[in-house]
């Protein structure tokens, strides 16, 4: 079993093409036999049709003969000729008046003694009639007229009980007759006598030998299928009429049919292939897209899928998949947002929204690395609100909290973008600031102090003036990050203690002597 639908579709297409080809091939070979068989039947039927036509013509000629025979005036006039011995002028005149319209070749009236009463110039016909009458009673016979065959019907004329003679009318199978029959039979006619073709509607066939073998005849290197046309009661038994169909035309017909079959096969196969490809493409394209998206999802991505307006099953599935991806994407965004919130809450102080001590542990190594890399000073500005306990006691904890919030807002406003502000204890705050000189940290600390002093907190219409004591230390770059932080906080705290001890609301830098340059240490380290 083929694993994919694509392969299956291709296989089905190949099967269909094969089936079509086999069917057409079978049709081709079978139709060849059918055509040949039909051709034979056609030849036989055409020859039967010709026989029928000749029979009809014969009956028609007989009817004309009887019409003339039964004409009383003709009888009377023949009677006058035979019995009284008049000339044939009256008979001829009457006959032409009455019967010139008859569609016959020749007219003859013979007396009982063989005299020609009408048709003086047809002596050959008179002789043929006399000869036939002497040996046969049959009213129709055939005779040779030049190269044509003449059909002759005759009837005896009786008047007042005595036989006066015979009337004979003829119809000729000449070239025009052969041509006329060619029009509706589509075949050739041959009048043959003693093995020679006397007359034919096939060009150049006349005077050629007529040699028949297995129903076939060869004329000018072309074969013809030949059937005899029966001429009953021929007087001249050497006269024959044949009907033939050219094998070349049959084969041409077959060839034409073969081409049509081949064309149909190729067209059919092409159409099936084309359809197969369209089906494969239409079926496979959305499936491949789905596969790609699925793989992408499996790798953790949630790509955007465009929905289509097509209503087929695969596109509906794709659309559903796109909807599903959109839903997943929204869920993922919510998770990320919640995660971010959680993360934020984990590193910030809930009251002041400043970073907490935990985040200090995370941030410090990075800042220290930056300072080390850029040969800068990382200052730790540690501050503690002065008399905070008294504020709490005097104004309440809520007011204390608002004082802390007030300080936090000031720190955010004053600090630079790359400075980090932490609340590391109840009323203790730390600012980490990377600078290119040790003085910058001190300046920042002073700025914080003075700003706070100048901006008292406002709590319920009460202005609470708050101050802060600030201790500043710089990171010892020779230490490990953890130790450096501990050291920084330690010295900053020492400086803060010194600021408090000196009366609060002031900034102290550790080491207090300016000769201590951390970069010296850094240089030693490096």
């Amino acid at each position, binding site marked *: 079993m083929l694993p994919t639908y694509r392969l299956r579709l291709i296989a089905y297409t190949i099967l269909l093409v094969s089936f079509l080809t086999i069917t057409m091939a079978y049709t081709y070979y079978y139709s060849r036999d059918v055509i040949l068989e039909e051709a034979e039947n056609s030849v036989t039927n055409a020859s039967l049709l010709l026989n029928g036509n000749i029979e009809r013509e014969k009956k028609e000629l007989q009817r004309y003969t009887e019409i003339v025979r039964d004409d*009383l005036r003709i009888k009377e006039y023949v*009677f*006058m000729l035979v*019995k*009284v011995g*008049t000339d044939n002028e*009256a008979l001829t005149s*009457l006959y032409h008046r009455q019967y010139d319209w008859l569609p016959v070749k020749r007219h003859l009236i013979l007396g009982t003694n063989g005299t020609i009463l009408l048709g003086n110039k047809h002596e050959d016909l008179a002789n043929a009639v006399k000869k036939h009458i002497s040996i046969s009673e049959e009213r129709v016979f055939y005779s040779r007229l030049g190269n044509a065959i003449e059909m002759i019907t005759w009837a005896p004329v009786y008047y*007042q*009980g005595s036989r006066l003679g015979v009337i004979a009318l003829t119809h000729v199978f000449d070239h025009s007759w052969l041509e006329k029959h060619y029009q509706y039979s589509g075949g050739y006619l041959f009048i043959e006598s003693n093995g020679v073709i006397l007359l034919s509607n096939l060009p150049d066939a006349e005077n050629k030998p007529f040699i028949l073998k297995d129903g076939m005849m060869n004329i000018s290197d072309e074969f013809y299928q030949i059937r005899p046309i029966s001429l009953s009661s021929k007087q001249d038994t050497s006269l024959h009429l044949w009907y033939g169909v050219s094998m070349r035309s049959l084969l041409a017909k077959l060839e034409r049919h073969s081409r049509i079959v081949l064309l149909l096969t190729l067209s059919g196969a092409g159409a099936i292939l084309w359809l197969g490809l369209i089906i494969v493409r239409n079926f496979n394209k959305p499936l491949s897209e789905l596969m790609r998206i699925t793989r992408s999802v499996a790798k953790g991505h949630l790509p955007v899928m465009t929905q289509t307006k097509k209503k087929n099953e695969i596109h509906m599935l794709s659309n559903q998949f796109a909807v599903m991806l959109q839903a997943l994407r929204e869920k993922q965004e919510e998770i990320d947002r919640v995660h971010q919130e959680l993360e934020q809450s984990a590193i910030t102080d809930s009251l002041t929204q400043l970073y907490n001590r935990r985040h200090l542990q995370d941030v410090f190594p990075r800042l220290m690395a930056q300072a080390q890399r850029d040969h800068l000073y990382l200052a730790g500005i540690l501050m503690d609100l002065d008399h905070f306990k008294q504020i709490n006691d005097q104004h309440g904890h809520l007011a204390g909290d608002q004082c802390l919030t007030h300080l936090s807002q000031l720190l955010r406003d004053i600090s630079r973008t790359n400075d980090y502000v932490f609340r590391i204890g109840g009323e203790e705050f730390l600012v980490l600031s990377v600078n290119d000189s040790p003085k910058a940290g001190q300046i920042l600390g002073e700025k914080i102090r003075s700003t706070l002093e100048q901006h008292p907190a406002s709590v319920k219409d009460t202005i609470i003036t708050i101050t802060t004591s600030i201790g500043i230390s710089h990171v010892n770059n020779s230490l490990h990050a953890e130790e450096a932080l501990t050291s920084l906080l330690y010295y900053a705290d020492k400086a803060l203690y010194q600021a408090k001890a000196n009366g609060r609301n002031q900034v102290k830098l550790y080491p207090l002597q300016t000769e201590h340059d951390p970069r010296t240490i850094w240089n030693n380290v490096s």
Partner: protein
Amino acid sequence: MLTACKNTPALMTQFICFACLAFGFHSSAVGDNTKDALMGAGAHFAWIVFDALKEDLEKATGRETILFGENSMLGVGCNAGIKAAKQNTLTHETFGFVCCPLSDDEINKHQLIVYPLAKEPVLILTHKSNPVNNLSIEQVRSIFRGDITNWEEVGGDVRPIVLISRLHCKSRPGHWKTILPDAKEFRQERLNVKSASAMVQRINDFKGAMGHTGSTWKFKPTDEVKAITIDGYGPTAKNLKSGAYPFYRQMSAITTRTPSTDVIKLIKEAQTGPAFRRVAEQYQLLPLMPKPHITSQK
């Protein structure tokens, strides 16, 4: 003979059809529209005379006259005249006309009155190209008998004589019987035709032909036919009257024994009126005495 017999039913059928057509027409269409008309029917030759007199007859009687008799070859002949006469009633006044004299038996059988109109010469006809213009009575009779069979024998060309006869009204006296009294006397090798037109046609066809017909036959200008004299006498009323011309027949009108006054008036006008004299002259007819001829009843 066999062929002739075969043709008889066809001719009978033709006759019946025509008779039905003619009289059927009269009794329906004509009967309604011309209720007071006098109706006459009969032999073609007599019809020609009556037809020529029609206007004068209508003037004499003051009534419309309807005549049937054209184309006797189609069967309207003397028998039709007798039949027409017998159809006479008080409301449907009819008379007949015949070209041959009726026998006494016939007159008594049908209870008829015969009103002789005129003697009509029977013409002896030959082809126009025939150089013979005169024959003696005996020569004519010999030819009709078959004793003379070639024109050469009577001074003409060497040409066989084609004898054409029309032996109609065989039971009645006169007419062709003035040539030979019995049909059996006629030459066997002859053409016996059924109508005057067929007679004329045959004579046209055969240059050696000889036949006969009444003088009232209207020849066409294209006809190659001529009438010969007998013993030097032509077929004229004068020669008939003198007895010099021997071949004739008698045409008459006929009625039942109880004809209406108007019918009698009409026939009298036909027998004696000036118009009839003119027609008689035209066709060389010899008017007969206008006495009604009534035979004794048996």
